[in-house]
């Protein structure tokens, strides 16, 4: 399986500021995904990031608020811009993964726990 390194693991930020989260994969992957998990909630897909093209955002998420970069096949960043307390969540990156069995699956990073004060 792919191994994902996600940074930072947690942060406490002032409202109005921005935080950039990094996701590094140990192998080349076509698609990378960014999820948000609000406190006590399930995971919601924010956007899909493909190398060489703009990210595709889900309903309710916009590029100005969550700009994403995908400079190569092993790396992506998600920025949470102009933060408010409502942005306090866990943010996770994910990749499609063959999981050594020739069948598709998904591997997740360990997440970034963001608290906005």
């Amino acid at each position, binding site marked *: *399986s792919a191994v994902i390194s*996600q940074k930072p693991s947690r942060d406490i930020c002032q409202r109005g500021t921005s935080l950039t989260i990094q996701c590094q994969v140990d192998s080349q992957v076509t*698609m990378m*995904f960014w999820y948000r998990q609000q406190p006590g*909630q*399930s*995971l*919601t*897909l924010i956007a*899909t990031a493909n190398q060489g093209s703009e990210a595709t955002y889900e309903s309710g998420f916009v590029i100005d608020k969550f700009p994403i970069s995908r400079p190569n096949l092993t790396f992506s960043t998600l920025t949470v811009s102009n933060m408010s307390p409502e942005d306090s969540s866990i943010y*996770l990156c*994910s990749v*499609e993964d063959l*999981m050594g069995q020739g*069948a*598709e*699956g*998904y*591997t*997740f*990073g*360990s*997440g970034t*726990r963001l608290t906005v004060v």
Partner: protein
Amino acid sequence: AQSVAQPEDQVNVAEGNPLTVKCTYSVSGNPYLFWYVQYPNRGLQFLLKYITGDNLVKGSYGFEAEFNKSQTSFHLKKPSALVSDSALYFCAVRTHSSYKLIFGSGTRLLVRP
């Protein structure tokens, strides 16, 4: 639209007893089904998946799940629960034609000694 339902917010079971965490889904087309576990302050860990083939799928840590097409269910099971199984469990679904993974609301499993 694709959706996943986990009807139980929490499941309580005694150590050594069998456990079941329920999941039902709604998709158009053949489903790919997944179970993930989340421990406190950790990301999601893959448990098992159903893509095709045998309806009974065996996964990590002694967990298994049975795909039931007629009931559109994919319940997670384990014959003998451990206290260390206590965590948050998520069921998820996608279809062959869509890469998007849709998650259920999650079920908290509490295994008491």
